[in-house]
């Protein structure tokens, strides 16, 4: 009896898994077939790369890829510097007012940047950063979440190492750089994976702040390319979609374990 239940359960689990990736499978199928073959599910139809050719010619994808790449790089670089400094201050230094400031930072966890689009847009324009990649990335650099994460990582570093480095004559920043940063490497890796995949996929804010092909990231480019007004068919949209998700998807499939670990490490507070 219990074996039947168990088999039934395994079947349901596998069926659900197939259902779950079916949108991706259908897109894959459509991208490599002509539109009429794709929607008729003509299983013997010839495979073709035409959709990719049409999609590639339809928008400055190389530029979009470059923009997204620059965006995730500067966001990550900014986050590393700012959250390391602030996280260290919260974890290892004692000074008056620290707790109040820390609560203020925690509050930002719930003030989503997405919600403040109107005023952040005004701020970015005021700073002269409208339609720049820096303007897209800047609101995310001082991430409260990252500061919290780094604080936790630095708190777990044994104080003996700190004392030893101090006796050796290391300055405070030297200790941070030589002792804390190397020991927090797994946290940095985890944070990097989460940050890159978040900002690779971000849409609403870049949509608002960018206004030209020179700054637009992939997600915004894809939404313009796939808009019904542009009149491209489903096979070409599928091809473009696969193109834009390919780098992250392939990276995920290769480094799956690290990805999942990263999401777990950064998610469990």
């Amino acid at each position, binding site marked *: 009896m219990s074996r039947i239940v168990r088999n039934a*359960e*395994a079947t*349901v*689990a*596998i069926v*659900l898994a*197939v259902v*779950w*990736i079916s*949108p*991706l499978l*259908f*897109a894959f199928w459509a991208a490599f077939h002509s539109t009429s073959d794709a*929607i008729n*599910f003509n299983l013997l139809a010839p495979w073709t790369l035409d959709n990719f050719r049409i999609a590639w010619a339809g928008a400055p994808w190389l530029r979009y890829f470059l923009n997204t790449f620059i965006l995730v790089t500067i966001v990550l670089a900014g986050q590393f*510097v700012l*959250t390391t400094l*602030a996280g260290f*201050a919260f974890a290892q*230094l*004692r*000074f008056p007012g620290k707790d109040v400031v820390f609560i*203020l930072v925690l509050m*930002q966890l*719930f*003030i*989503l940047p*997405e*919600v*403040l*689009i*109107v005023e952040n847009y*005004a*701020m970015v324009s005021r*700073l002269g950063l409208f339609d720049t990649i820096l303007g897209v990335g800047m609101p995310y650099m*001082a991430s409260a979440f990252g500061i919290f994460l780094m604080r936790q990582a630095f708190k777990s570093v044994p104080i003996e190492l700190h004392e030893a480095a101090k006796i050796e004559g290391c300055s405070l920043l030297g200790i941070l750089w030589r002792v804390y940063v190397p020991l927090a490497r797994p946290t940095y890796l985890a944070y990097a994976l989460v940050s890159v*995949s978040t900002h690779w*996929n971000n*849409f*609403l804010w870049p949509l*608002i702040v960018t206004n030209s092909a020179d700054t637009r990231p992939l*997600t915004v480019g*894809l*939404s313009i390319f*796939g*808009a019904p007004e542009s009149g491209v068919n*489903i096979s070409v949209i*599928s091809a473009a*979609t696969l193109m*834009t*998700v390919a780098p992250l*998807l392939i990276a*995920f*499939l290769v480094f*799956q374990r690290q*990805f999942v670990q990263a*999401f777990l490490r950064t*998610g*469990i*507070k």
Partner: protein
Amino acid sequence: MAKGINIERRRQAIYGWLLLFPAGVLLSLFAFYPTIATFWASLFSRGTRRRPSEFLGTENYAALFNDPTFWTVVQNNLLYAAVTVPVSIGIALAMALWANSKIPARGFVRTAYFTPTVLPMIAAANLWLFFYTPGLGVLDQIGGLFGLESVNWLGRPETALWAIIIVTIWKEAGFFMIFYLAALQTIPEDLREAADIEGASRWTYTRRIVLPLLMPTTLFIMVNAMINSVKLIDHLFILTKGGPNDASKLILYYIWEMAFAFFDAPSAAAMTVLILLVLCIVASIQFFLIDRRTHYQ
């Protein structure tokens, strides 16, 4: 000696504030100041070239409460939250229990569940477009096999929001699954053996032992899911644009539309303040409910 301690203390204070300074500046520019400015802007009228903006007090809020679209959008968002939060948590739990049990092709199953998490919402929307397109889409073709009529899933007010909800659940469930997976792996094996010896069925074991132990994780996921029900709106831009007749419009999308399509910044500000209030409530749930529970352990 006392002097040395004093100097050390002052040094720490100076270093502390210096280290916080860069992050503090950016947080002020892009979180604290905008929050206050939003609240302030919600109290003034829209300034035009001829008429400068003037203080209105709560009039923008009153206008918002008289706007039927606002209530439609609030209702939509409540339904969106009321469905996506429990359903994606339920599916995530089932996925985690399966991905943690001894089933064939476990690696494939886990990967399949998690994959939507790494896709951009915009790409996900494009993938689902292929399912929903009337006549040609996968759903209609499957329906056609059973002799069902073609349905314009995204174009009908009765189904548009549900189509949006399904995409959100699809995107979220695999993400929440991994938190459950992590929690499941911390449950000691002895408990299962003890349950076996006592002759408890697997169902009893799951219901009486596993689910209570997963409670803190569930609350943590719930807070995340509630935040997501405000935040996850990217697919609206591709699938429905809030239509037809606002039937699938959600609050954040409406804020975007108010501010950047209708250029009505004060109304957008008033709505933003209301969302921030809701997020405050979610934050207090997190602090008072969840933190207490984890301390309790």
